[in-house]
């Protein structure tokens, strides 16, 4: 449970057109029909005693503490399960009710340890509060009678413990697991006095299906389910609302503190992206922020074979600036650049691109969105006119059919995944397009895909075209929408193109491997079931035709009129916390903030006047171009903030070669990450807990990041960039990130109305936020598209097979993905207890392919592509189809990117991570690369050790 600072209305809010007026304790109150008496009372400040009710879950009526009397009605109904009715007269407190409530509390307490003073929930316990509220003074039952006081604790979960002796069997945890999280890992075992909470089949939490989201811990009214951090340190004393730094859902949290120590993260009920829910990463995996591996002193070295030398900030910054200037003098202005990260705040990203454009004097700035959602930026800008998703997350609750393409929301975007599952349990239809059987297909209780289009990796465009073909040839088009909202000439061209028999599902089947009948049925379902929403992820973008698929998705949504209102739309699920924001902030080499091309004279003049400098009109280098140029000897200096290119980028041996070729690599990060092992200057970064700023999530929601502790190394990241800019000779004088946001707002039309003051007032804002939409824009393109003529643009999407084809040498296709407990390169989550769930990356392989190769589960297998070879343990699974193998990429030693190739999206260079032809064979030892890398890594850690101990 959380500090009782957020009001609990007892039961969820109801939406209704009819309002009902009633009288509670003599006060008139009006509430929407369907509201519980308990909630209506709470609305006017009358808190009816309760134990089994909380407003995140449906009422249950089991504890009977909330009984009330209703004039003219018999008995004492529970106020949580009694809906309001017109003219009702309710009494919530009288002698009789008090008597009943005391009796109930007496029974509860008769089987509860009376150790309040030493209990971890002391002062933060609803049972204790209720004992006080009902005036419990004595317990007449024999304490030696039958009880549960000796029940054994379950300490299996690393983050929370379950103490059944303190459990009152209110079922709030069971219901939270079902309703809020949708995992159904808990139940009540037995009945009557023997009832007890049971994970799985009466087993330990860690052995059950529990995903450790913590919803049960938050729902628990006592100390039965309690964070171990609270047990260890005691209850927090103050809290600050901030935004999670993991995935693109951007959950709002209350960071509950004790002095400057973070005790626990509790999802914020008013958070508009998460509504009080969280996942295992956001709620529990924050230990990395104070991990002993954090580097908190700047370091420099001449060569990457030298030991690191700890220095002061001034020396480090001056050294970095002098090296960058030296390189520019020697190799030319364009020989240096910077890379920002989707993990940084908007303000930090903005400053890095400003430093590069204004301070370095070129446009060599890029961001890790290059390797994830750059095709989204391109495809949606071309078709809809804006590089962003069209909806807010809540929109999914109005969808009738949901199509998930190349995304795995329950692992990658768990809190949104839970919301989607909630809608699916209410009856929305589901189409999954994925080569692999993700949990949504049939491994989530009460959720099952109506169609799983299990396509071959790399054939997305053929499949999307086939869906479009069915929509057009079976006349499932929304003619009115197309006529009114879209460029009709472009549509006419597309209609002829897509109607061609070569796009028919029967033709596509040979390419995609998906039965034509399923494609036809799925297309009909999407086009005709009412509100159709598409959610997609990196399974769409990270392909040689990533941008084409994004465009194809946009075409499909326009053709069926599934845009511009709630429940529909095209929604990229962003991988990291600030992918949307880092793109918005102009960190691509060709675009200023707000997606305006650097060659656009008016925009450039605007920035030139404000920044007081002449700006380059030609786009700069993209990340892969930087690597190529480095290997060629023309790109020699790089400033990398918060990104680990030496692990996350494809064809990693090429990346490592490029990094070794550079003369000055400056890494700003929390840890000596893989890239820092190739660096000459290390500038300690600050975690999201140590700085102010904003993140923009996948629904364009700008949310506040608030400083809850001092930066361990002394500076917030934006301050470090500012120091470097000043040392480079380009003055920056911000004293607070709010001033950076003011500058962004001043120079970017879609952000014109954004300010810290407004974010504080509203909690968060979805851009565009300007004069027309002062409170932001939950649904985009409601009346017209953001393109210059206001019309949506259909574009032709010819399928071109990737060059990454299977051959006799490489007969299998490797594709990659994420897992719930780990996050991207793992630099954060590997330094938390989350390794208890996933301690290594494994290669999923179909039983047929495994049998052909004599591989059994757990065997070490070599995975070889034209780029390189690595070794992982095999996991035999029918989730993948024959011919396809799959792995996650959270551990550097796994070397997933040793295998991936340099093939990339035609429009944006986004790497084709999702399709790599490989051969897999049984081996007995690590690959050559792994051995070399392990030696290199060990050597670098020794150089760190030498430097930090002898400095």
């Amino acid at each position, binding site marked *: 449970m959380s500090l009782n600072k957020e009001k609990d209305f007892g039961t969820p809010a109801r939406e209704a057109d009819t309002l009902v007026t009633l009288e509670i304790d003599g006060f008139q109150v009006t509430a929407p029909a369907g509201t519980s008496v308990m909630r209506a009372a709470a609305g006017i400040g009358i808190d009816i005693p309760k134990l089994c009710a909380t407003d995140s879950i449906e009422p249950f009526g089991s504890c009977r503490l909330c009984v009330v009397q209703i004039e003219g009605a018999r008995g004492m109904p529970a106020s949580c399960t009694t809906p309001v009715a017109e003219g009702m007269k309710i009494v919530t407190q009288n002698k009789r009710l008090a008597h009943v409530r005391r009796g109930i509390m007496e029974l509860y307490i008769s089987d509860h340890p009376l150790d309040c003073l030493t209990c971890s929930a002391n002062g933060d316990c609803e049972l204790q509060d209720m004992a006080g509220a009902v005036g419990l003074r004595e317990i007449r039952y024999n304490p030696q009678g039958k009880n549960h006081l000796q029940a054994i604790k379950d300490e299996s979960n690393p983050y929370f413990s379950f103490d059944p002796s303190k459990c009152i069997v209110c079922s709030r945890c069971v219901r939270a697991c079902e309703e809020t999280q949708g995992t159904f890992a*808990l139940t009540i075992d037995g009945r009557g006095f023997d009832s007890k909470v049971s994970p799985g089949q*009466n087993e330990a939490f860690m052995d059950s299906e529990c995903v450790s989201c913590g919803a049960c811990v938050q729902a628990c009214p006592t100390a039965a389910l309690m964070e171990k951090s609270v047990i260890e340190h005691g209850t927090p004393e103050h809290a600050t609302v901030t935004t999670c730094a993991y995935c693109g859902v951007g959950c709002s949290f209350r960071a509950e503190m004790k002095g400057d120590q973070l005790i626990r993260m509790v999802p914020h009920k008013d958070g508009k992206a998460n509504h009080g829910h969280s996942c295992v990463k956001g709620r529990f995996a924050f230990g990395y922020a104070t991990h002993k591996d954090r580097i908190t002193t700047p370091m420099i070295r001449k060569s990457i074979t030298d030991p690191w030398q700890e220095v002061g900030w001034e020396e480090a910054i001056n050294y970095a600036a002098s090296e960058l200037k030296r390189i520019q003098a020697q190799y030319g202005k364009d020989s240096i650049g910077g890379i920002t990260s989707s993990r940084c705040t908007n303000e930090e990203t903005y400053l890095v691109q400003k430093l590069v454009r204004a301070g370095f004097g070129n446009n060599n700035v890029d961001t890790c969105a290059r390797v994830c959602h750059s095709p989204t930026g391109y495809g949606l800008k071309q078709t809809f006119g804006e590089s962003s998703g069209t909806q807010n997350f809540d929109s999914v609750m109005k969808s009738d059919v949901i199509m998930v393409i190349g995304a795995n929301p329950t692992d990658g975007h768990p809190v949104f995944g839970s919301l989607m599952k909630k809608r699916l349990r209410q009856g929305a239809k589901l189409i999954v397009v994925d080569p692999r059987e993700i949990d949504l297909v049939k491994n989530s209780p009460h959720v099952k895909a109506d169609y799983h289009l299990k396509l071959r990796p790399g054939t997305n465009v053929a499949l999307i075209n086939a869906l479009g073909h069915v929509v057009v040839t079976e006349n499932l088009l929304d003619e009115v929408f197309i006529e009114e909202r879209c460029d009709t000439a472009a549509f006419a061209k597309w209609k002829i193109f897509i109607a061609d028999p070569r796009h028919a599902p029967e033709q596509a089947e040979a390419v995609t491997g998906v039965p034509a009948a399923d494609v036809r049925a799925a297309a009909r379902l999407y086009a005709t079931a009412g509100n159709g929403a598409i959610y997609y992820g990196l399974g769409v973008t990270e392909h040689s035709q990533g941008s084409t698929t994004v465009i194809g998705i946009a075409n499909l949504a326009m053709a069926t009129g599934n845009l511009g209102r709630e429940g529909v739309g095209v929604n990229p699920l962003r991988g990291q916390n600030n992918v949307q924001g880092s793109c918005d902030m102009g960190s691509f080499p060709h675009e200023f903030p707000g997606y305006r091309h650097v060659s656009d004279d008016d925009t450039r003049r605007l920035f030139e006047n404000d920044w007081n400098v002449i700006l380059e009109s030609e786009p700069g280098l993209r990340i892969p171009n930087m690597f190529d140029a480095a290997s060629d000897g023309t790109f020699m200096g790089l400033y990398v903030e918060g990104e680990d290119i030496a692990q996350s980028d494809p064809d990693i041996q090429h990346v490592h070669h490029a990094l070794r070729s550079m003369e000055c690599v400056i890494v700003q990060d929390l840890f000596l990450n893989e890239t820092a092992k190739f660096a000459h200057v290390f500038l300690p970064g600050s975690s999201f807990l140590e700085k102010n700023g904003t993140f923009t999530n996948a629904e364009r929601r700008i949310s506040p990041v608030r400083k809850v502790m001092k930066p361990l190394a002394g500076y917030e990241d934006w301050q470090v960039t500012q120091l470097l800019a000043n040392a480079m000779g380009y003055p920056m004088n911000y004293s607070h990130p709010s001033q950076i946001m003011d500058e962004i707002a001043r120079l970017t039309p879609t952000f014109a109305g954004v300010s810290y003051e407004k974010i504080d007032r509203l909690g968060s804002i979805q851009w565009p936020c300007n004069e027309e939409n002062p409170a932001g824009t939950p649904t985009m393109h409601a009346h017209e598209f953001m393109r210059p003529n206001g019309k949506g643009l259909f574009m032709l999407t010819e399928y071109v097979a990737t060059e990454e084809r299977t051959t006799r040498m490489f007969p299998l296709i490797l594709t990659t993905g994420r897992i719930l407990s780990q996050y991207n390169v793992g630099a954060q989550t590997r330094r938390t207890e989350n390794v208890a769930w996933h301690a290594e990356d494994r290669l999923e392989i179909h039983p047929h392919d495994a049998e052909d190769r004599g591989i059994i589960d757990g065997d070490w297998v070599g995975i070889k592509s034209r780029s390189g070879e690595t070794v992982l343990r095999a996991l035999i699974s029918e989730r993948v189809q024959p011919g396809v193998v799959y792995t996650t990429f959270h551990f550097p030693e796994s070397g997933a990117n040793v295998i991936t190739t340099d093939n990339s999206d035609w429009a944006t260079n986004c790497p084709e991570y999702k399709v790599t032809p490989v051969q897999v064979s049984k081996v007995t030892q690590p690959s050559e690369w792994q051995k070399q890398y392990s030696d290199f890594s060990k050597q670098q850690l020794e150089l760190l050790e030498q430097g930090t101990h002898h400095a």
Partner: protein
Amino acid sequence: MTETVSTQSTVKEITRALKHKPGALLPILHDIQHALGYIPADSIPVIASELQLSRAEVHGVISFYHYFRETPPGKQTIHLCRAESCQAMGSKKLEEHVKAKLSIDYHETTPDGKFSLEPVYCLGMCSCSPSMQIGNDVYGRVSNESFDSVIDEREALS
């Protein structure tokens, strides 16, 4: 075919045959118990997956109903009535005797696997209280002595 494999295939067969009925879980559990004598723990993942339920949900239902067993029953199950009429006629004393005689508690099976003991709440034989049922045979006016002789006789037979 090993025993586990045949058990699993029985579970699958029953589950697949009934899964499309509304409220299929209870009929499935009944049929499995009828076929196997109990509901083995490793059948729960199969039932859960076929019905799109979690293991916890299936376990919750099984543990709620005392009739469902999670362990194999003895060769013969003794259902001893604990309802009001039998209690009035001294079934509590009989209960103590039965437990002592068999050295097991309710829901347990004798180590030799011959007898399981389960409570039952009324066999509809109140006029002959206290009563019990073993297999298809019902016994009325059971005393400590008559219980012993029934058991001894049945033990000798089994």
